[in-house]
């Protein structure tokens, strides 16, 4: 994985958008030229900013790295506001400013039964996780989603690992979904649980992991201005109640070491 080497090589790059879109959508797969990354850890993220944004939005936007190959890097993006809607309107060859890979990644121990708990766009990092894992036969993907399944890369992932998906049609579905998450987790008491998704989803996972003493890692989402640990705008409390930057000390934290 060469993380150490890689981290020293984090640079700001200007790369081209390789895709095109036929029509506007709220879920887009954004494929950029590979900015020269040789390796990354699934769970790491990058900050993106379209070159033409100008000054109205002074911040880049953080997105999990979904997959990387020699030519390209792919992100899965849900349009929720000003930056994501601009990214979803990029045209072919338009230039995007990118810095990354940033932060840490999920643990990927070989031969360990590992449950991947994804909520919505939280599925993004697991795409690359599955592809690069030393023993994918030990992985199980549990995917809770709201939008239709085909907005997500679930099916290609389900071809590679054991997978199940459950749709939240309304908040009435939540108790059952939570129950299923907990049941799934119980099956990994001796293994590892990795979770990425909205904060309430992570809280559920954390509570059950602590209760049942299951080893779990959570990928947190916070508004980020710099992405590199400098602004202190993205902090959460660690186990000792001290503020730590989610961007540089996370975004992945052991469930026992973080207050969310």
């Amino acid at each position: 994985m060469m993380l150490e080497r890689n981290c020293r090589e984090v640079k700001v790059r200007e790369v081209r958008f390789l895709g095109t879109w036929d029509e506007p959508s709220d879920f887009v797969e954004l494929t950029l030229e590979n900015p020269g990354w040789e390796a990354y850890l699934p769970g790491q993220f990058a900050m993106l900013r379209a070159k033409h944004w100008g000054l109205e939005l002074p911040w880049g936007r953080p997105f999990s790295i979904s997959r990387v190959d020699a030519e390209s890097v792919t992100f899965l993006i849900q349009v929720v506001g000003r930056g994501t809607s601009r990214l979803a309107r990029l045209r072919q060859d338009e230039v995007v400013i990118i810095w990354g890979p940033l932060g840490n990644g999920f643990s990927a121990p070989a031969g360990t039964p590992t449950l991947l708990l994804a909520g919505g766009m939280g599925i993004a990092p697991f795409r690359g996780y599955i592809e690069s894992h030393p023993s994918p036969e030990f992985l199980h993907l549990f995917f809770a989603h709201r939008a239709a399944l085909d907005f997500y890369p679930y099916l290609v992932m389900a071809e590679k690992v054991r997978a199940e998906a459950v749709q939240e049609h309304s908040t009435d579905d939540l108790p059952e979904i939570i129950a299923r998450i907990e049941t799934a987790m119980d099956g990994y008491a001796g293994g590892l649980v990795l979770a990425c998704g909205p904060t309430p989803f992570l809280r559920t996972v954390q509570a059950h992991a602590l209760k049942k003493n299951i080893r779990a890692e959570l990928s947190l989402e916070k508004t980020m201005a710099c992405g590199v640990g400098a602004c202190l705008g993205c902090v959460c409390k660690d186990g000792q109640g001290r503020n730590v930057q989610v961007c540089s000390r996370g975004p992945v934290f052991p469930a026992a070491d973080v207050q969310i």
Partner: protein
Amino acid sequence: MIDLRVEFAGLVLKNPIITASGTFGFGLEFAAFGDLKRLGGIVVKGLSLKPREGNPMPRVAETPCGMLNAIGIQNPGVEAFLRDKLPLLPWRETAIIANMYASSVPEFGELAQVLSVEEGVAALEVNVSCPNVSFGGAAFGQDPAQIRKVTEEVKKHAKGKPVIVKLSPNVTDIAACAQAAQDGGADAVSLINTLLGMAVDIRTRRPTLANVVGGLSGPAIKPVALRCVHQVCRKVLIPVIGIGGIVSAEDALEFILLGAAAVQVGTANFLRPDQSFRIIDDLPRAMIKARSDSLGELRGSLKLP
């Protein structure tokens, strides 16, 4: 090769581009993005005597061409800085300026005492203008008499290190505040700190920041910063460091034309983490636009009607 060196207040900087406090961490966060030795200077995150956790989250919000922050001077304390960070910084090659925050005049003196014995600290920047702390901070910065007192106290303990007083724009008369700093013995003033602002989320009906109010920075405030620097440059004799909304070499030159000896780059470091380095690279080109090859000639050369 254009000579970009600037000298003022006992400092000799390779170039007039200094990174602003709170926007460049302790510098080390940016080592991957450029050679820190190339910077004119680095003002580190605000330091207090004791570690501080800062304000509750959320504490940043993006606004049109700007941002609000209410970090509340989270920092590991001056001792940890001197022990863990300063030794790793290229302080022999680049001016490392300590930004100081305290909640009383004597505490400012104590902090100055601790910092001024350090060879690696090039100068002290006194933050009397932080809008994000309930005690001290802007309270000092809005009252010229207090500014003078704090300046005198810091100066007394600075052991000859240059003392830069950082001013708040949230006042009726910023020139009077600069005058007070000069009267208190400041070697320079830096301005502006952030404008007091606020954001509201209509969905939750809550202020976006847990602290309710925060400091506005970024390109949005550049016109206010230019006006303040103009007013102060015409009032005081000590050097002025211009801050506020600088994102390009052209922006930096605007402040220098008004009379600033150097500038600080803040929010622009979030546009992209190599932005301060890019501004330095771009300075010579911008100077050509202003038809000059000398910062000395440019400084204060604004033609007024």
